[in-house]
């Protein structure tokens, strides 16, 4: 890619003033980040530019490497649960679920039906607020400063209210337990959630109408950051990004974890795998999530919320290892645990979708301009807490 670019015929002055007068021979190194408004946190990209064009892009990680894995290997199984909240700090509920699911696989605990439904409800609420937030940030990166993000956060606050109502915290819910959930839904919660679900389509219409048809958004997103399906699969890209490239792989359908096989929902797929597809993917997934929410709230059964065999303290799974994964809003979130029979895991590993989705960042950005890099990165949907852990 780099060599082919250098051979391209170039008109005079195209390299831009910064690269100097030597026609096309000088490259400009720019470090974007770690403090940069468009990198969604402390993330750095070492970009090599030829004029405006990107010829090389190397992401630099670790500015938020908080040693989650090592700390988890030193604390009890339960003690890691609040730390998983802080992985992808926008989606603490789905992180909780992924970790609880993995430990349940390791120990054989079985959550009761009501708990499974509650988990689905929480995960889908999380997906709605994550995607709404992401689109807000993405449009902000494109210059729609303020308004879309305001709308997204207005809706997000409503979901956070639901979370706080049930778990007591806005962001760091620490709600799920091995074999169920911590507390039952309080009185009136289901009605509150139903009220949200009823209003949600109106919000989604509004949010979609806001900029979906805007010529500027189309010009900035269509055909930008193309990701072919084969490359996406080989690079381990998962989640909405993979599906935007046209690969039908949704763990809710493939693994059928939880009770996802009881709901009817569609998996939206993209065609080209450009930024526009990824943007639309989020909008469509939010609608599907709302439909799952309506079904789950309608069918929510009564009964216990915790496996009677589950215990809070002194969990000692048998020696062995397990890999559990769920479809988190950003992709496949996996936990790999090795137990040596003691109260804390011997090895605790998080498979971060955000980090692995960035593998293809350079491929998507090559030969594009700096302004496109910002948009492409925005469409990947990263949260640094998860990228660096």
């Amino acid at each position, binding site marked *: 890619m780099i060599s082919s670019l250098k051979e391209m015929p170039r008109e005079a002055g195209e390299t831009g003033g910064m690269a100097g007068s030597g026609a096309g021979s000088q490259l400009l190194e720019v470090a974007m980040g*770690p*403090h*940069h*408004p468009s990198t969604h*946190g*402390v993330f750095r990209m070492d970009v090599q530019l030829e004029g405006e064009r990107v010829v090389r892009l190397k992401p630099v990680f*670790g*500015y*938020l*490497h*908080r*040693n*989650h894995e*090592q*700390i988890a290997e*030193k604390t009890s199984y339960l003690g890691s649960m*609040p*730390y998983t909240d*802080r992985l992808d*700090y*926008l989606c603490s509920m789905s992180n909780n679920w992924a970790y609880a699911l993995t430990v349940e696989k390791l120990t054989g605990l079985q959550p009761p039906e009501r708990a499974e439904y509650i988990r689905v409800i929480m995960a889908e609420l999380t997906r709605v607020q994550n995607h709404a937030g992401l689109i807000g940030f993405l449009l902000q990166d494109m210059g729609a400063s303020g308004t879309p*993000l*305001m709308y997204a*956060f*207005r809706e*997000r*606050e409503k979901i956070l209210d639901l979370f706080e109502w049930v778990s007591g915290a*806005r*962001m*760091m819910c620490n709600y799920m337990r091995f074999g169920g959930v911590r507390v039952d839904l309080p009185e009136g919660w289901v009605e509150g959630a139903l009220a949200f679900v009823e209003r949600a389509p109106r919000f989604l219409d509004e949010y979609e109408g806001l900029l979906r048809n805007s010529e500027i958004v189309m010009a900035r997103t269509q055909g930008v950051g193309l990701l072919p399906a084969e490359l996406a699969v080989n690079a381990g890209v998962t989640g909405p990004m993979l599906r935007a490239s046209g690969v039908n792989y949704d763990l809710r359908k493939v693994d059928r974890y939880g009770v996802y096989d009881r709901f009817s929902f569609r998996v939206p797929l993209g065609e080209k795998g450009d930024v526009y597809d990824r943007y639309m993917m989020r909008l469509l997934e939010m609608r599907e999530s709302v439909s799952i929410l309506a079904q789950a709230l309608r069918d929510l059964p009564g009964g216990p919320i915790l496996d009677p065999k589950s215990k809070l303290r002194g969990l000692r799974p048998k020696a062995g290892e397990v890999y559990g994964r769920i479809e988190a809003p950003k992709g496949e979130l996996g936990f790999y645990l090795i137990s040596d029979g003691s109260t804390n895991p011997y090895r605790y590993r998080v498979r971060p979708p955000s980090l692995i989705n960035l593998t293809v960042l350079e491929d998507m950005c090559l030969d594009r301009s700096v302004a496109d890099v910002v948009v492409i990165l925005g469409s990947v949907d990263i949260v*640094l*807490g998860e990228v*660096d852990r």
Partner: protein
Amino acid sequence: MEQDLKAELQKHGVFTTTFEELYNWGRKNSVWPLTFGLACCAIEMIATTMARYDLARFGAEVFRASPRQADLIIVSGTVTKKMAPQVVRLYNQMPEPKYVIAMGACAISGGPFRDGYNVLKGIDRYIPVDVHIPGCPPRPEALIDAFMALQRKIAGQQLTGGARARHLKPETPSEYPVPEHGEHGLEPTLNAEVWNPLRVIQ
């Protein structure tokens, strides 16, 4: 002027002020924070600026992306050892008078992650902090509360005399040494000029 007289005059529609008060009033109502998010707390910081909490009501509408245009750095999240030099550098690049809010457990002390090998145990090891907000993460209301505490601090700062504000004293530095990445960790591990360790007196 006596406070009683001032209050009395105010009732009659006569407002009096000193230069210091006017100056501080202007400063405290136009604190521009730096767009600087580190981790989870940054999301709550963004939520504070959004429609429901609306930090703009306190004159902090403009989040500046450049440290040269900012008065306040909200250290919102875990400062890792890899990031610490950049945070200090950003602080150094801000013009005086400048203020620091350590938002959340991680920024104050390393918080839940303080046992990590790459986590700095509190930003107050390298730069002076004006207001600490505990919480993980603090609610948006807590950030507003801290912001108001900072405004009170600014309003109370003296411009002259021995007890004048930190930035007006010629001997206090405006920039602090930036730590360097060593083979095993940051060098030095703290700036003794800034850091006040906990002393237990038995």
